[in-house]
C-alpha cells in the first residue's frame, strides 16, 4: 500500500521531489563538510601548537635581557613544566628581490639548529636542516611579497649583502602570518646565520631577540613573572596566538552559517511541498479517514516519502561532503599542519542532523491532517474550489494591467505559500550581503577611523629613518612636512607617534606594553571608545584588550616608568586597537619621556583639511608616493585592507556564496513555478479559453515571483545592516575591535546583488513558465 502510494507520488511530483532532494543533498554536504572543517581547524590548531613545541605561552625579550635571570625566574614558576628558546635577529626591509624591497613582514633570522619552535614543510614533515645558501620562508610571507620556491632573494643588512635560494614553504605555528604578527621567521643554515649575526649593526644587543616557548599550566603566572624582567617585549598565550588563524576559523563559521541557511531553506521547501501535497490529496485523505485509517497512519504514509528523500539526500550529501571537506581542509592546511583527525564522523553527524531534522519537521507539518474530516474532503475537495486561504484584493476602480492585478491578488490570497519564496530568497540574499558588508568594511578606512585617527593617507617610514628620529627632530619633521604639502596645495595635518615599550605596575604586578607617544596630534583627534584622551603626564589611555585582561578601567591608577622611576598615572580613556593583538597603551603628548628612550616611528598619518573627493585623494596619494621618500604610501582604506589581510579571502568567499545563492534561487523558482502550473492548470486553461494570450499568462506568473523577490531582497537589504553588526561584531571583537563603524557598498547591496537575485528569479520562473504553453484552452473539457 505504502509503496503503491509512494511510487504514484514519485511519478506525479518528479520535479518537486527532485528539487527537494537537491536541497537535502546540498544541505547535508555543507553541514558535514562545515562541521568537519571546524573540528579539524579548531582541534587541529592545538595539535599543531603541540607538534611545534610552542608551549602554552610565548615570550619575547629584546635588547639587554639577562638570559640566566629569565630562566631562573621560569624555574621558580610552579606551573612551568619546560621551555624551548631560540635566538633571532630582526632587521626590517632587509630582503630584496632584485632591487625591490619586500615590504610585508619583518624578518626574524633563525638558525635551524637552534630553533625553539619546530617548523614543518608543506608536506607536514619537520624541517631539520637547511643547506648553506638556502632558506625556508612561510607561505603567507611568500604570498604577500610574491616570492616563489626556487627564487633567489638578497639579504641586505646595513650594506652587507648575500643571496639565498628559497627552498620552499614552511608551516610556522606562531609566526605564520605577517599580517597578524609583524615578524616572520627566516630559517637559515648555521653558516648563513653567522653571516647575519656577525654584522656590526647587531653589536650592543640591538635588533636581537630571544624567544621562549614555555609549557605551563598557568599562563597568567608566567606572564606576570616575565613582565618584570629586563628586555621583556611581548607575551602571547595560545588564545591570543589563535587569532593568527582567524581567517581559517572564519571560513569554518561562514560554512556553518551557510549550512544553517541551507537547512532552513530545505525546511521551508519541505513545508511548501507537504502543504501542497496535502491540498492536492485532500479528498484522498478524507476517503482514507472514511475507510477507517487513523490520523497517525495517514501521517506516516506522507512522512515515509520525506524520510526516503532525507535518507537518500543525506547519503549522497555525505559522500559529496567528504571531498569538499578535504578541499576546505587543504586550503586551511596551507599554513597549518592539519589532518582530518576526526575522520568522517562530522560528515556522518551532519547527515544524521539532516535526516532527523527533515523527518521530524515533515512529521510536524503533516499534523494538519488531524484537522481534516471525511466530510470536509467530500464537500470541498473538488477542483477549482478554494482549499483554504485569505481573501485577496478587489479589482480596483481604475484600469490596471490584469496580470499585475491577478499576481498581487494571488500573493495576498495565499501569503503563506509565497512566504516560502520570500524566506528562501531573503536568506540567500542576506548571506551574500553580510559578506559584502564585511568585505566593504575591511576595505574601508573604518578600522582606522574607529581605532586610531580619522585620516586619509598612511605613510610608512623606513626603519632607518625611524631609528634616527629624536623627539625634537620628529616634531620639526612633521611641521616641515605640513609646510611642504601646503606649498604643493595639499592642505593637511600630519600626525605621527613614537612607539616604545615601557614598564608598568598594575595591581602590584609588573608588565611591559607597547606604548604610543603622539607627536603633533591635537587633543581629541585620537579615537577612544570610553572616557577621554590623556591630557597630561598624569593621565594614560589603555587598550580594551589590556583593560579586559587585567580587569582595570577608567579611574584606576597604575604605575609607569618613564625612565626616571615609577610614577602614578590615572586611566582616563579606553581605546580599541587591532595592533599588537589588541594590547597597547597611549600617553599624552606632553609626557616627559627622556631622550633616547624612544623606540621608533613607524607611520605618518595625513588628514586633508580641504575635504577632497575620492579621485583627488587617489591623485594626491600617488603624488606623495612619487615625490616623498616614504617606504610605502597607502590611502587609509588600503592600509586597513593590508593590515587585516582578510578582505581578499572574504571577497572570494562572497562570490562563491553568490553562486550558491543564485543556484538556490533558481531551484526554488523552478520548483515553485512547476508546482503552480500543476496546481493552476485549470485556471490557465480557463484564462486561455476566455482569451488571455500565452504571454499575458506567463507575465502573470513571472510577475508574482518578481514582486515577491523584490520584497525579499528589500527585506534582505534592510536586514543586512543590523545582521552584519550582529554576526561580525564578535568576530572583529576577537581581533580587539568592538566599536567598528560598518561600511556599506550602496551599489552592491541596493542594486547589484538584489538585481542578480531578481534577474535569476525572473529568468528561472520565465523559463519554467513556458511549460504552461502545453496547456490548451481545450483542456477545459477535461476539468474534473
Amino acid at each position, binding site marked *: 500500500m505504502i509503496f503503491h502510494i509512494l511510487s504514484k507520488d514519485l511519478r506525479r511530483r518528479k520535479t518537486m521531489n527532485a528539487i527537494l532532494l537537491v536541497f537535502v543533498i546540498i544541505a547535508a554536504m555543507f553541514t558535514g563538510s562545515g562541521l568537519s572543517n571546524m573540528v579539524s581547524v579548531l582541534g587541529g590548531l592545538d595539535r599543531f601548537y603541540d607538534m611545534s613545541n610552542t608551549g602554552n605561552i610565548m615570550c619575547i625579550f629584546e635588547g639587554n635581557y639577562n638570559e640566566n635571570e629569565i630562566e631562573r625566574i621560569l624555574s621558580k614558576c610552579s606551573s612551568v613544566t619546560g621551555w624551548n628558546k631560540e635566538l633571532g635577529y630582526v632587521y626590517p626591509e632587509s630582503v630584496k628581490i632584485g632591487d625591490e624591497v619586500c615590504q610585508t613582514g619583518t624578518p626574524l633570522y633563525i638558525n635551524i639548529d637552534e630553533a625553539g619552535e619546530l617548523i614543518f614543510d608543506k608536506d607536514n614533515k619537520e624541517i631539520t636542516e637547511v643547506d648553506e645558501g638556502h632558506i625556508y620562508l612561510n607561505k603567507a610571507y611568500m604570498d604577500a611579497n610574491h616570492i616563489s620556491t626556487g627564487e633567489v632573494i638578497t639579504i641586505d643588512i646595513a650594506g652587507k649583502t648575500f643571496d639565498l635560494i628559497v627552498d620552499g614553504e614552511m608551516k610556522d605555528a606562531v609566526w605564520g602570518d605577517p599580517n597578524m604578527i609583524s615578524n616572520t621567521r627566516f630559517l637559515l643554515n648555521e653558516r648563513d646565520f653567522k653571516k647575519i649575526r656577525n654584522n656590526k649593526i647587531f653589536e650592543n644587543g640591538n635588533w636581537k631577540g630571544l624567544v621562549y616557548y614555555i609549557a605551563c599550566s598557568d599562563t597568567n603566572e608566567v606572564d606576570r613573572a616575565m613582565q618584570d624582567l629586563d628586555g621583556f617585549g611581548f607575551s602571547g598565550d595560545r588564545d591570543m596566538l589563535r587569532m593568527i588563524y582567524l581567517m581559517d576559523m572564519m571560513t569554518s563559521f561562514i560554512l556553518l552559517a551557510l549550512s544553517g541557511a541551507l537547512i532552513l531553506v530545505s525546511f521551508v521547501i519541505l513545508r511548501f511541498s507537504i502543504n501542497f501535497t496535502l491540498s492536492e490529496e485532500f479528498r484522498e485523505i478524507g476517503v482514507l479517514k472514511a475507510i477507517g485509517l487513523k490520523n497517525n497512519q495517514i501521517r506516516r504514509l506522507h512522512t515515509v516519502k520525506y524520510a526516503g528523500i532525507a535518507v537518500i539526500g543525506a547519503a549522497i550529501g555525505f559522500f559529496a561532503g567528504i571531498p569538499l571537506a578535504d578541499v576546505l581542509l587543504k586550503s586551511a592546511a596551507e599554513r597549518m599542519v592539519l589532518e582530518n583527525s576526526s575522520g568522517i564522523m562530522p560528515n556522518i553527524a551532519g547527515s544524521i542532523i539532516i535526516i532527523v531534522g527533515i523527518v521530524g519537521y515533515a512529521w510536524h507539518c503533516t499534523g494538519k491532517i488531524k484537522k481534516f474530516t471525511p466530510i470536509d474532503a467530500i464537500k470541498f475537495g473538488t477542483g*477549482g474550489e478554494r482549499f483554504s486561504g485569505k481573501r485577496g484584493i478587489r*479589482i*480596483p*476602480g481604475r484600469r490596471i494591467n490584469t496580470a499585475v492585478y491577478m499576481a498581487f491578488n494571488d500573493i495576498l490570497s495565499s501569503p503563506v505559500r509565497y512566504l516560502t519564496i520570500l524566506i528562501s530568497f531573503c536568506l540567500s540574499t542576506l548571506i551574500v550581503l553580510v559578506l559584502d558588508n564585511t568585505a566593504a568594511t575591511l576595505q574601508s578606512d573604518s578600522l582606522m577611523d574607529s581605532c586610531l585617527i580619522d585620516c586619509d593617507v598612511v605613510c610608512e617610514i623606513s626603519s632607518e629613518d625611524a631609528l634616527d628620529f629624536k623627539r625634537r627632530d620628529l616634531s620639526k619633521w612633521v611641521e616641515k612636512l605640513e609646510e611642504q604639502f601646503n606649498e604643493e596645495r595639499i592642505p593637511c595635518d600630519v600626525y605621527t607617534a613614537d612607539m616604545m615599550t615601557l614598564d608598568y605596575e598594575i595591581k602590584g604586578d609588573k608588565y611591559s606594553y607597547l606604548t604610543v607617544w603622539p607627536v603633533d596630534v591635537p587633543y581629541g583627534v585620537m579615537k577612544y571608545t570610553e572616557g577621554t584622551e590623556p591630557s597630561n603626564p598624569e593621565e594614560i589611555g589603555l587598550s580594551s584588550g589590556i583593560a579586559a585582561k587585567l580587569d582595570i578601567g577608567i579611574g584606576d591608577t597604575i604605575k609607569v616608568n618613564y625612565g626616571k622611576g615609577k610614577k602614578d598615572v590615572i586611566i582616563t580613556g579606553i581605546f580599541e586597537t587591532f595592533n599588537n593583538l589588541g594590547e597597547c597603551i597611549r600617553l599624552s603628548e606632553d609626557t616627559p619621556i627622556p631622550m633616547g628612550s624612544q623606540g621608533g616611528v613607524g607611520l605618518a598619518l595625513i588628514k586633508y583639511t580641504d575635504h577632497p573627493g575620492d579621485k583627488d585623494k587617489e591623485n594626491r596619494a600617488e603624488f606623495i608616493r612619487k615625490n616623498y621618500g616614504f617606504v610605502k604610501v597607502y590611502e587609509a582604506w588600503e592600509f586597513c585592507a593590508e593590515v587585516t589581510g582578510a578582505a581578499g579571502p572574504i571577497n572570494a568567499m562572497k562570490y562563491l556564496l553568490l553562486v550558491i545563492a543564485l543556484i538556490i534561487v533558481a531551484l526554488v523558482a523552478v520548483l515553485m513555478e512547476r508546482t503552480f502550473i500543476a496546481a493552476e492548470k485549470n485556471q490557465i486553461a480557463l484564462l*486561455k*479559453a476566455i*482569451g488571455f494570450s500565452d504571454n499575458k499568462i506567463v507575465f502573470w506568473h513571472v510577475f508574482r515571483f518578481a514582486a515577491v523577490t523584490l520584497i525579499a531582497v528589500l527585506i534582505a537589504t534592510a536586514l543586512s545592516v543590523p545582521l552584519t553588526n550582529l554576526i561580525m561584531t564578535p568576530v572583529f571583537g576577537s581581533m580587539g575591535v568592538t566599536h567598528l563603524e560598518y561600511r556599506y557598498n550602496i551599489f552592491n547591496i541596493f542594486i547589484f546583488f538584489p538585481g542578480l537575485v531578481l534577474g535569476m528569479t525572473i529568468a528561472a520562473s520565465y523559463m519554467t513558465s513556458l511549460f504552461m504553453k502545453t496547456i490548451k484552452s481545450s483542456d477545459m*473539457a477535461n*476539468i474534473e
Partner: protein
Amino acid sequence: MANEIRMENEENVIEVRDLCKTYITNKRQLNVLRNVSFDIKAGDMVGVMGPSGSGKSTLLYSVSGMDRATAGEVRFCGRDITKLSDSKMAEIRLDEMGFIFQQMYMLKNLTVFDNVILPACQSKKLHETMKETKARGEELMRKFGIIETADNDINEVSGGQLQRACIARSMINKPRIIFADEPTGALNRSSSDEVMKELVKINNEGATIMLVTHDAKVAAKCSRVIYIVDGNIKGEFELGKFTEDEEIKDRERHLNNWLMEMGW
C-alpha cells in the same frame, strides 16, 4: 439588454466547411471530426447533440478556435480563423466570443463579481472606464438574479448561481457568439432550468449561441439541433425560436421523434 448583443440577422456568424479533426494516439489515427460543414446565423441558438464520443465537444472547441482543426475551414464573421496565430485567436475569443463550460470554473482567488468582469478588464474592445465596466457587470448579475452573490467567494455560492455567473462572464465583452459546452451537465434539474431560461432569454434578445448537450430537454429550447455521430453530421432539425409562452413539451416530443429517427 437587447442592444448589448450584436444583431446581425441573416448574416452567418459561423461558417464551417469540411472540418476535420484527427488525433494520433498510440500510433493510431482517430478521426473525431470528418468533413463537417454547417452555418450558424446571427441570433441562432444551435444545439449539438450526439452520443458520447461522437465529437460534440471537439466540434465546439474546433469551431471556437480553442482547438486547432486538422483540416477544413471555420469562418467567423467571414474571416477564416483556422489560420490565425494563437495570440490573434486569443484576442478574438476575448473580444468576440463568450464561453460557458460544464464545470462552472472560475478563478479561485477572485470574488464572483471580479470573475465576471475580468475579461472586460483585459479587453480594450469597448473603450470604457472601469466604472462603466463595473456598472455593466452589476447590471448583468442583477439581470441573472445573482447580484447578492457579487462579493462572495466562488465556493460560497450554489452551482446554479455559479453557472449564471459564468453566463454573465461570457457576455461581459458583448460577444458575437456564445459557446456553451454542456452548460447544465453538472446541475440539478431546477438549476438547469434556471440556466436554460437565461440562455433562451439572451438568445431571444439577439445573442447567437452554439450549445453542446446530451439532454433533449435542453436541446428542445434551441432553434436548431445538429445531430452528430462518429464525427459526421447525421442530420439537422429546425425547431424555430423558443418563446417563453410556448409549450416546451411539444418541442420535446418533436425533437425526440426526430432523434429516434437518427438512432438516439
